[in-house]
């Protein structure tokens, strides 16, 4: 399969290079054809790989492609590890990317940077595939940063907009804070194992866990805890977990297709994938897992709340992405890695769908994004309406839709995870994901109702232009709506309970919540479906939808009243818990003042002023004094010579 893997990775890269460098020569159609065919082929080959893994009985493969460098006994390679986890990710990435490529033809139709855009998204596909297919930490980091680069380029795609180039710088820097932890984590791995290769590192997991590292000087830390927490800091950056989440909402400055592809379906899930991939390490550190679950829980609940007060259609979806990423992280912390990846997969479909649907509305509204200026769009855009409904129902976990299976079981798994005996952690996590269901339903349907139902708040002129978007836009919506609706039915069993991932994911037996659920709770998809009506999850979601309906369709005056009554709370949410203020006014401004201080006081005043030029001045002044001795008159020199001669002679005669 080696040739397949190479082709899957390299074809999008080649397409990206051609579209990027020869964009003018091949024209707009040339650029979209070559990239679409490229990613299409990648998708097809990935499907074959998945098929072979799942039904063909193919074993996981671990191949080296070439040696990047070898020095001091450290082998740095580029290679592929393709197992069932990888195969699933490959299909998800290439499928969503394929859909987004097609959609882009419609969305970017009038943009002067058309070819550049296609080049970037193909480059992204390449980078993301390198990330998920890697068999070592070096290439993982390459893919990790490469997707960050493309994300930077695409958020700032409309580089004339001040807000876009602010957002892309912010995204890159916040991600770099995460990567700072990540590279230290990789360094720690090398320190304890002497290798960057997954297989070798995982093989030595027990030995890492038995070592210690002096960090603070008080008491040594368990090496595995250090490794896992450092790596997780990387995941917090990439997967936008609090407090490194601030870049994701701003990333909505980028064109909508990439919000769907990068900032919802694939790149932001890289952190989730990474932790699942590293399950053989994380399973050896309950401390790290506790950190993971708490961060995930806080993100899941509190970021969801922010979605309620947003008025920008894309930002609502962005906060919902943050919250759903929090759900996945919680599952990781509960050792339910498969549940996290399963939710990652369904989320990729329905969240890409929601973003593209939002984009469809945005096109139709001529780039108006404020949901307060929409309403009643249902009758103008029926296909967008129905697909968005599918996406929203999947997001809130409505029974039968894909999100239902993944979210319901994720919550069951968290509930089941009593293992760590850390009561508070468990309760925080469980309550967060449970209450999060209500919040999710509330903000999702608030947006849905405000956009598609109720009073038509746009201008008459807008209305006259309003119509369904062209086929290149709605066909991807439909193609994404299908898996969003039904994929849960037949994948939930194999992925979560029938050991689809096999050895790709390692869970310690004592806390294998999914295995436990499999014995006590799970029968089949239909059973789960019928059981749903007696779970709090269902009723919370229903309550959320009802509340949204009541507040935003039935009595739209109430939200205003609440906003006025609870001004403090509203401000807290509106200002996003003041994280941005803290970072921009605190860290960024602080860093700049510190830099200015070091430059003007350290470099210019002390080093240059006092030491360098000070020395020069002193030499100058000294020379000024000495100059007076050198009068230029012969008698002064003669006198000096006589005195010198006398002293010298005297010294020779009496002292020696």
């Amino acid at each position, binding site marked *: 399969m080696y040739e397949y893997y190479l082709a899957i990775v390299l074809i999008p890269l080649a397409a990206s290079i051609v579209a990027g460098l020869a964009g003018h020569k091949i024209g707009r159609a040339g650029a979209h054809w070559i990239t679409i065919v490229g990613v299409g082929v990648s998708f097809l080959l990935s499907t074959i790989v998945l098929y072979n893994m799942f039904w063909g009985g193919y074993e996981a493969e671990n191949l080296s492609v*070439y*040696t*990047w*460098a*070898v*020095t*001091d*006994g*450290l082998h740095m390679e580029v290679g592929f590890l393709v197992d069932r986890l990888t195969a699933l990710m490959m299909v998800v990435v290439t499928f969503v990317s394929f859909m987004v490529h097609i959609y882009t033809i419609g969305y970017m139709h009038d943009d002067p940077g058309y070819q550049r855009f296609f080049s970037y998204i193909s480059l992204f596909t390449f980078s993301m595939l390198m990330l998920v297919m890697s068999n070592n930490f*070096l290439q993982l*980091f*390459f893919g*990790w*940063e*490469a997707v960050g*680069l493309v994300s*930077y*380029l695409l958020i*700032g795609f409309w*580089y*004339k907009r*001040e807000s876009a*180039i*602010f957002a892309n*710088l912010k995204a*890159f*820097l916040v991600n*770099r*804070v995460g*990567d*700072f932890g990540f*590279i*230290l984590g*990789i*360094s*720690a791995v*090398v*320190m304890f194992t*002497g290798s960057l290769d997954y297989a070798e590192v995982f093989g030595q997991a027990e030995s890492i866990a038995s070592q210690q*590292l*002096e*960090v603070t000087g008080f008491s040594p830390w368990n090496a595995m805890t250090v490794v896992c927490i450092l790596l997780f800091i990387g995941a917090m950056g990439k997967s936008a977990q609090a407090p490194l989440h601030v870049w994701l909402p701003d990333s909505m400055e980028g064109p909508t297709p990439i919000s769907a592809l990068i900032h919802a379906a694939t790149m932001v899930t890289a952190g989730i994938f990474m932790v699942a991939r590293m399950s053989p390490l994380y399973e050896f550190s309950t401390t790290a897992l506790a950190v993971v679950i708490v961060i995930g829980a806080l993100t899941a609940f509190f970021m969801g709340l922010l979605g309620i007060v947003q008025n920008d259609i894309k930002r609502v979806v962005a906060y919902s992405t943050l919250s759903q990423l929090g759900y996945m992280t919680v599952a990781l912390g509960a050792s339910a890695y498969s549940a996290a990846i399963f939710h990652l997969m369904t989320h990729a479909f329905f969240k890409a769908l929601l973003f593209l649907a939002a984009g469809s509305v945005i096109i139709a509204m001529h780039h108006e994004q404020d949901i307060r200026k929409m309403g009643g769009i249902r009758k103008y855009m029926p296909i967008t309406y129905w697909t968005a409904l599918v996406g929203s129902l999947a997001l809130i976990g409505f029974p039968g839709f894909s999100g239902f299976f993944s979210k319901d079981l994720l919550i069951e798994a968290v509930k089941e995870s009593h293992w760590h005996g850390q009561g508070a952690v468990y309760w925080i996590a469980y309550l967060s994901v449970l209450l999060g269901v209500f919040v999710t339903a509330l903000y999702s349907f608030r947006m849905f109702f405000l956009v598609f139902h109720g009073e038509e708040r746009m201008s008459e002129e807008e209305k006259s232009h309003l119509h369904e978007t062209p086929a290149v836009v709605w066909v991807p919506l439909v193609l994404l709506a299908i898996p969003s609706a039904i994929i849960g039915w037949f994948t939930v069993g194999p992925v979560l309970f029938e050991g689809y991932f096999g050895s790709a994911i390692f869970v310690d037996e004592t806390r294998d919540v999914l295995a436990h659920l499999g014995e006590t709770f799970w029968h089949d998809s239909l059973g789960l479906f019928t059981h749903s009506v007696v779970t709090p999850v269902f009723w919370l979601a229903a309550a959320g939808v009802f509340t949204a309906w009541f507040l935003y369709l039935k009595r739209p005056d109430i939200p205003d009243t609440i906003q006025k009554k609870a001004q403090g709370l509203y401000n807290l949410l509106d200002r996003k818990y003041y994280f941005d203020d803290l970072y921009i006014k605190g860290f960024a401004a602080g*860093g*700049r003042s*510190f*830099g*200015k201080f*070091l*430059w003007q006081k*350290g*470099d210019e005043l002390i*080093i*240059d002023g006092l*030491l*360098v030029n000070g020395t*020069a001045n002193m030499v100058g002044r000294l020379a000024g004094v000495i100059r007076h001795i050198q009068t230029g008159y012969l008698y002064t020199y003669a006198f000096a010579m006589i005195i010198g001669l006398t002293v010298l002679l005297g010294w020779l005669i009496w002292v020696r």
Partner: protein
Amino acid sequence: MLANYILSVLIWLPIAGGVALLMIGDGGDVKSSQARLMRLTALAFSLLTFLASIALYIGFDNAERGMQFVERVLWVDAFNVWYYLGIDGISAPLILLTTFITPLVVIAGWDSIKTRPAQYFSAFLILEGLMIGVFSALDGLLFYVFWEAMLIPMFLIIGVWGGERRIYATLKFFLYTFLGSVLMLVAFIWLYVQTDSFDLLTFMNAPIGLMAQKLIFLAFLIAFAVKVPMWPVHTWLPDAHVEAPTGGSVILAAIMLKMGGYGFIRLSLPIVPDGSEYFSGLMIALSLIAVVYIGFVALMQKDMKKLIAYSSIAHMGFATLGMFLMWWIVADTGAGLGMSGAMVQMVSHGLISGAMFLCVGVLYDRVHSRQIADYGGVANTMPVFAAFMVLFAMANAGLPGTSGFVGEFMVIIASFKANFWFAFLAATTLVLGAAYTLWMIKRVVYGEVANDNVAALQDLNAREFIVLAILALSVLLLGVWPAPLVDMMNTSIEQLLLQVGQSKL
């Protein structure tokens, strides 16, 4: 036959070329056919030198532990001074870097130099020969002669073709570097008295007491720290860069700064290993200060060249950090990783900083300003240029897939093995490096067209395109496949570590 004298060819061919240029002259008019001939001659000599270095690369034996291409002729009998040349895996990459960058500088200055072009190109060719001389000299005095001679062309380049405050900058540059190197001469003379020879390899094997080692280390330190430059003797660099013409900045950043790092590896570490060990803590501290302190200072620069100059200091901090980690690493491996990382960082920094200065030069040639505030929205009028500049900025920020990542990655891993906090401070460059580089990009390249100057900008011409494209390809190639470079150095670094590992007491 000629192959035995390839180092001499590499040194004297460009110097002969430089002299030839002076004789051809420019005919008093940059557009004259004479000036054209002169420029073509300059290009021909720099390309011939590059070709000769390719022969060197082909003939180089990666597995050889000793010196290669050795030439040894008695020079001054009375003091036992030899014309003694030879290279190993540490000097060879730096020679290749020199011969690679010089033709690019010649092309870059093709028609942007209006005054005294013959002398300008001549200075660069002579400088090239002298720098290769430093990298291949194995005799202390010969090393010293090349080392000091190298200052003269650079002094002239900044002093004659520089900006407004060029006199201040040249004096500062000259005094700083000259004062530093005089102490190196003193150390050489002391060693000569001990060993009756100026042979560097003899110095390496001579037993030296701890006190003497410490003093020699300090003498070397002052010479090399100024060149690197290390904090706190770095303040000449931003001034020199700002005033230097584009080509001068490129050579200064790409190659002359490497002299300091090379000096540490070639002289300090093997000649005074115990002295180096004694001061390694200080060296690591200074290196980390360079990374963090200078990173913050770079953030606030308003002048693009100053910003890149400060960024160079921070990046060179990685090189010196990697070199002095070995005594702090308790594990059996890791020292070599730090040393390789340091070397890769030096080569890569040569390419990236050179490219960054060329980019600023492209803008300066058009707008005659280096101030960030005078730009904005360059991508609108110069899209091709913008693509290059963003690529080099990303390389400067150490993005994997570019050469900028390779060295930093190795050094961070090695420093983690030494101490968690070393790695912690070193890794701050991921954030700081990205912050100062990309913030500059945001203000210069992106945004709406800021003013009429930017609106009138013309995109790259063919000549500029070729230079930047060649650099871009090499930055990417080294990032995707650094093995050829690393393999070249591995044996020599092993050998060096063996040597340094043995106490001379």
